[in-house]
């Protein structure tokens, strides 16, 4: 699979997308929190603005009670007590209402304006009724308009309800903001119902006390209905307080208010609420005491309401603070995310991508055969750093390889399996005449003579199987079409998975070697011919020289035999001398022939026990040894070696014979031994040395080399039994044929020791087993 994007792009894209996602999420959260904060703020303002409506309703309620009771009583003392309260309530209600409506009219909610307008209209009507009440209160009881109190009652009630409508109309725009606050609003609404209905009860009860009258059945029904509404509202309020999380903040105020209401209204339960009871003027307390009592109840309601408002405001403050906190934390998170994003950009760009690009560039350079120079990467501890360290090591190896390839005397070429050349070193340039620029990308056939292309296919077939081709000698063609003898070594190049993807070829120019080989063959043939000629010469010479020799010998004999009586002593002596010389000459000719064969014939190598060899010689020479009073001594058993047994036997026989012959002692000893290591007096170390030691005359230093020459004797021939002087020449030849060396150490008068080895570099020659 091919990736269209670079790693850097991919990494940065990933980081970018992740950052953008986080930023989006965080920003969304911040936006929502901000919006919520706005709403909470608005809600808070709204409650601050609208809560005074409760005061309005409360004051109106108190005013309703006061006015209602005063209208039924003309006792100046009573009026004195209630009137200031009435005035006070009226003033407070008016102020609160005016201010609140003013504030609310700034909100541009549909329907709200109409409600406010209605409220204002009703308020204006209420002002008128107030003036009528004020007038009526100046009149005695009987002069007062009897319908006024109830009309007043209804109008205030309506006004209160309208105020409530305004509140409801206003707060319905904020119900959705927060469920808890919404519940608290509903609690306030229920509390408002308690206050309104209990207010009505209080007003009616107050009037009955003032009038000192019993409740009519209608009035009693009203009282019971209002009481029912209050009880219902208490239950609802309790549930809402629970749901609206108002407990425990308002627990005390709630209990206080409820117990106040239960106690005060419980006190008058039997008097006003139970049908059939007639009390007339026998109320247990005066009207002003009732109002005092009921006012305490109102105050406790008031406290409860304030507690709720306070709680709502506290709750909203907490919400606000929380939203602000959330915004702050999200802002910090956003900043951190961006910082992380920038850090990632930095790391990806400067610590990952840039070093990798540097390494890639260096490796590309290496591929083009230039010296590799790895970028310096300082962050040695991370993965890239380790990669760089490994590549530094690689660089050293690569530079070494490049140097080797560049300086190699062999042409080093690499190519693909299709034969396309991928590298071409300096020696290839020298050998084939093409430079690297000309050849890289070209087909290898360019240097293969057409008649040898089949051979290249066979090489490729073998390489394809993963088998190298070694030292394959063939011909290639240089730029000028000249044929060159080369030795090819071709090795497969494998990819990381082990597949053969190309071949590396080492071509050695073997033209000089081929020429030398041809010359060598020529010289070898010439030498063989020469040897054969020499052999033939020796053979022919021996044959042809021997024939006249036999004639001279025989005729001398015949002369001696046939003419013995005619010959004088001097002639006989000369003829005998002639016989002797012809015999001697024959031995010389035979030795010459034998010597030439020694060098010509192959050695017959076999396992040979040298002890046995010496024993055989002793047997053969038995007579000779006895005659010369000679003894052969072998201090330590001799080894078994591989050698040409007959030749080695002759070697020892010659040395033993010499040792006995050139010895003047009456009793002679020849010692034969073997030394696994030996150092000559000159300090040259030798291994596996045989020696033959005599106690004879010794040989002067100046003859140490000369004695090995053919037909060289240090003494003049004195008798027919003396050798021709070729013995040591044969010995030397046999030793040399076995790849060994022979030398001697001698002290005149004390004896001579011949040392020799039979081991040479040639595997066919003697070996110690």
């Amino acid at each position: 699979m091919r990736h269209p994007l670079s790693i850097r792009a991919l990494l940065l894209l990933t980081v970018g997308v992740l950052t953008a996602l986080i930023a989006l999420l965080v920003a969304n959260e911040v936006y929502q929190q901000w919006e919520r904060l706005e709403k909470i703020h608005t809600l808070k303002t709204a409650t601050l603005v609208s809560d005074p409506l409760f005061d309005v309703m409360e004051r109106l309620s108190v005013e309703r009670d006061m006015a209602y009771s005063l209208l039924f009583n003309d006792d100046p003392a009573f009026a004195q007590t209630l009137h200031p309260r009435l005035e006070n309530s009226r003033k407070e209600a008016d102020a609160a209402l005016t201010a609140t409506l003013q504030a609310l009219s700034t909100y541009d909610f549909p329907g709200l304006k109409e409600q406010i307008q209605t409220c204002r209209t009703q308020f204006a009507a209420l002002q008128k009724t107030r003036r009528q009440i004020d007038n009526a209160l100046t009149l005695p009881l009987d002069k007062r308009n009897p319908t006024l109190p109830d009309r007043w009652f209804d109008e205030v009630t309506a006004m209160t309800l309208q105020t409530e409508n305004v509140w409801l109309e206003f707060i319905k725009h904020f119900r959705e903001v927060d469920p808890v606050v919404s519940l608290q609003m509903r609690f306030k609404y229920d509390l408002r119902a308690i206050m309104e209905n209990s207010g009505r009860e209080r007003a009616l009860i107050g009037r009955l006390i003032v009038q000192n009258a019993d409740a009519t059945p209608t009035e009693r029904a009203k009282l019971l209905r209002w009481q029912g509404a209050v009880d219902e509202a208490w239950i609802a309020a309790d549930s809402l307080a629970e749901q609206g999380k108002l407990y425990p903040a308002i627990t005390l105020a709630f209990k206080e208010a409820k117990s106040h209401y239960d106690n005060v209204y419980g006190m008058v339960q039997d008097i006003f609420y139970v049908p059939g009871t007639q009390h007339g003027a026998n109320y247990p307390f005066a009207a002003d005491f009732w109002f005092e009592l009921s006012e305490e109840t109102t105050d406790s309601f008031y406290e409860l309401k304030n507690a709720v408002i306070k709680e709502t405001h506290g709750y909203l403050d907490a919400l606000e603070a929380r939203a602000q906190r959330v915004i702050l934390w999200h802002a910090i998170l956003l900043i951190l995310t961006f910082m992380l994003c920038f850090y990632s950009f930095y790391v990806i760009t400067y610590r990952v991508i840039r070093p990798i690009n540097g390494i890639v560039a260096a490796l590309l350079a290496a591929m083009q055969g230039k010296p590799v120079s790895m970028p310096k990467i300082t962050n040695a501890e991370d993965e890239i750093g380790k990669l760089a360290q490994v590549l530094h090591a690689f660089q050293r190896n690569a530079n070494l390889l490049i140097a080797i390839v560049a300086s190699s005397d062999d042409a080093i070429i690499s190519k693909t399996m299709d034969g396309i050349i991928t590298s071409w070193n300096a020696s290839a340039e020298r050998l084939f005449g093409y430079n690297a620029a000309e050849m890289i990308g070209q087909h290898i056939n360019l240097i293969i003579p057409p008649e040898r292309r089949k051979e290249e296919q066979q090489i490729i077939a073998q390489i394809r199987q993963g088998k190298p081709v070694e030292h394959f000698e063939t011909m290639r063609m240089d730029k000028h079409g000249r044929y060159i003898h080369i030795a090819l070594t071709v090795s497969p190049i494998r990819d990381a998975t082990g597949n053969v993807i190309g071949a590396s070829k080492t071509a050695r120019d073997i033209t000089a070697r081929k020429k030398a080989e041809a010359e060598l063959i020529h010289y070898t043939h010439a030498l063989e011919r020469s040897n054969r000629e020499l052999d033939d010469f020796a053979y022919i010479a021996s044959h042809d020289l021997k024939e006249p020799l036999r004639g001279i010998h025989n005729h001398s004999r015949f002369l001696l035999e046939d003419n013995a009586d005619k010959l004088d002593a001097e002639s006989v002596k000369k003829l005998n001398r002639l016989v002797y010389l012809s015999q001697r000459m024959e031995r010389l000719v035979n030795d010459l022939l034998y010597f030439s064969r020694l060098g010509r014939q192959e050695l017959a190598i076999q396992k040979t026990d040298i002890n046995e060899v010496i024993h055989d010689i002793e047997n053969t020479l038995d007579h000779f040894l006895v005659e010369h009073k000679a003894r052969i001594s072998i201090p330590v058993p001799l080894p078994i070696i591989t050698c040409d047994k007959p030749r080695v036997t002759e070697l020892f026989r010659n040395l033993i014979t010499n040792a006995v012959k050139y010895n003047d002692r009456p009793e002679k000893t020849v010692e034969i031994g073997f030394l696994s290591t030996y150092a000559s007096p000159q300090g040259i170390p030798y291994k596996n040395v045989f020696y033959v030691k005599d106690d004879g005359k010794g040989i002067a230093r100046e003859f140490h080399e000369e004695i090995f020459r053919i037909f060289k004797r240090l003494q003049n021939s004195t008798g027919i039994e003396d050798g021709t002087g070729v013995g040591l020449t044969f010995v030397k030849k046999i030793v040399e044929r076995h790849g060994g060396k022979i030398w001697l150490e001698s002290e005149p008068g004390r004896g001579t020791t011949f040392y020799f080895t039979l081991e040479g570099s040639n595997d066919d020659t003697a070996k110690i087993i």
Partner: protein
Amino acid sequence: MTQPKSYESQPILVVDDSEDDFYATERALGKANLHNPIAHASSGESALEWLKSKTNPKPGLILLDLNMPGIDGRKTLEIIKHNGALKSIPVVILTTSDDERDVEACYALGANTYIQKPVDFDGLIEAMKRLKGYWFEIALLPKEG
């Protein structure tokens, strides 16, 4: 004079191009007490001619030199040993050569004995004595015809 032995009527044919060698051989045969008539052929051609001539008796032994001009000893030996009438005649190679190749070749062609010519005349006498002992006194040859 002792009674002549029966074999002494069979001639000995000496084939040698060297007059000197022939003379030495003839003399050595005499010294070895062989009194057979001695025929001399100085070449392969004349030897074969002598052998094929009806007038000549069949020889009891042929002493054959190897190195001769014309038909040499090897060829002569081959012809004798391929000739039904002649092949039973013992042929002793008497030559200067001690080359193993010659020795092997001659035995392969049917030579009965191979002797290197001794340079020493005493050696030659000794050789002839032994030949006499073996071929004329010990060895039994197939009867003619």
